[in-house]
């Protein structure tokens, strides 16, 4: 793989890989380093998928990044906030929901779903994810207890998950979570 092909590969997969390691619990700077190191492994390793095998590349990069995280975790470096078991569960959830896609479809669907939220729920989501408000600040703003905020956010996220699933897979039952088709 020459440098031009390598750069193309990075452009194609970096966002999905960053998204994946963030989902696994890596902090932002650690996530950037993990993405970088995963691609560097790809550059110097002979046993990689052929260029153009998008799904195979996504799986290869995810596996490499996850193994790097586990290796660092076992060395005592705090890359993930939770346990190895939680990391494996998070990986399983990614495979279950996103699979070998890159998550862009889910994001587009999620943005549409956000637009259709009731005003109070939309305000809660904005405060938490756009303005990074603390739970106590939100509680004061929304006239709820902190536990109430926690439950509200969880309910909204679950509703959004169902909305995304229905947009990506319109014929699916209403109950299922945002699972891949």
């Amino acid at each position, binding site marked *: 793989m020459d440098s031009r092909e390598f750069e193309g590969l990075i*452009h194609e997969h970096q966002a999905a890989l*960053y998204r994946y390691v963030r989902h696994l619990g890596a902090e932002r700077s650690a996530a950037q380093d993990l993405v970088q190191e995963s691609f560097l492994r790809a550059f110097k390793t002979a046993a990689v998928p052929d260029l153009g095998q998008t799904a195979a590349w996504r799986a290869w990069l995810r596996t490499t990044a996850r193994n790097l995280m586990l290796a660092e975790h076992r060395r005592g470096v705090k890359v993930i906030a939770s346990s190895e078991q939680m990391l494996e569960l998070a990986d399983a959830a990614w495979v279950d929901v996103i699979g070998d896609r890159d998550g862009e479809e889910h994001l587009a669907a999620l943005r549409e779903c956000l637009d259709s939220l009731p005003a109070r729920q939309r305000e809660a989501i904005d405060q938490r*994810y756009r303005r990074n408000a603390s739970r106590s600040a939100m509680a004061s703003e929304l006239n709820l207890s902190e536990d109430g905020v926690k439950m509200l956010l969880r309910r909204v996220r679950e509703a959004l998950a169902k909305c995304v699933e229905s947009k990506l897979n319109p014929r699916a039952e209403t109950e299922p979570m945002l699972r891949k088709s």
Partner: protein
Amino acid sequence: MNEYRDEHDQLMETLLNEAAGGDTPPDLAERIVARAMARESTATMLAPRTIKPFWRRTALWAAAAAVILVAGGVALWSGKSYPGPTIDGQAIIAGGGSLDRGKEVATATGQSAKLTLGGYCHIELAEDTTVQLTGGVKDESIYLKNGEVTCKVDHQIGGFSVHTELGDVHVTGTEFSVKLVDDVNATNPKNPFSQGENPMTTRKMVVAVITGTVILSSPWGQTPVSAGETQVIVVPQEPTTKPAKQWTPVPGASFGAFPTTQAAADYLTKAEELLKKELNATDEQWTAMQPKIKKVIQLTTATRGITWIPKVGVLNYPTEKKASETATAMKALSKVAGEAASSDADVAAKVKDVQDAQAKSKLEFEKAQDELRAVTTPLQEAKLIEMRLLD
């Protein structure tokens, strides 16, 4: 199963963080490509050694340069604070300022100093010793130019290497010393440069291990050296009377006294060609870039010492003979600080002069870098950052 589990909720949080605009995936392509190129250079330069002393010496210089390159940007994702270099004792930091990687540290006759790298490499510099700090995080190293160092490396923290023009010493946890000795009167009939009665210099590298084992790499291969053992590496040097016509510019070659002015000019031309190739610059781009690179390198040389460029070697442009304002101010400060009759006000005034000169120099350097950055493509900028010509 159709249950909305915690890990699904975690995924939804990740997507919401991105959708709400708070955590957009960054574009890391240039950074990663630049890093891959740097690692490739390192791997090439640190490839298995041949039994050709002079060729090998070139590779050693290049390897040292590659280590410098890698040292600049490597950051572990641990997020922990990594100790920077510290020094205690009587030593001079080339170019003044703080003790940063890439800088040279020297002790004079009768002086000594203790250098600590990464908190785990403890290095004693004997008198008349010059080293350059070349390593990176948990992979510390120094380039020993002359003199002697005694090193103690704490176990199970990171690697440490001493590079010299004659060979390298690699360790992970031990205590040893490395000394370079010049014998100006030595003769060696097998030396192809001895040419009859010409005097020659033989430089020796003496490695003595106090505890543990080190791996000594030299033009003749690799060998372990254990506690209580001493190994001596000898490589004949060119005599100073070697005819100029035998001299050829070599990529990655060390920078020293050139036999003729033409030889220096040839070297510069060759090095510029290599740099242009490394930057993948068109003739038009190079025409715009060259004077700006020259300016940056001249200022780099003045403030940071010798400029190393991977695959290119040392690239130094002639500078004005007059001392820089910083050097002049520093000299005045040293003089005042060393005089018992100096008052605190005298010293404070000289300190301010040095600080003013350094601030002015920094501004000039940043301006030159900005001007260079303005005529480069993003990839060229990345390469120049890797070369330490741009910050």
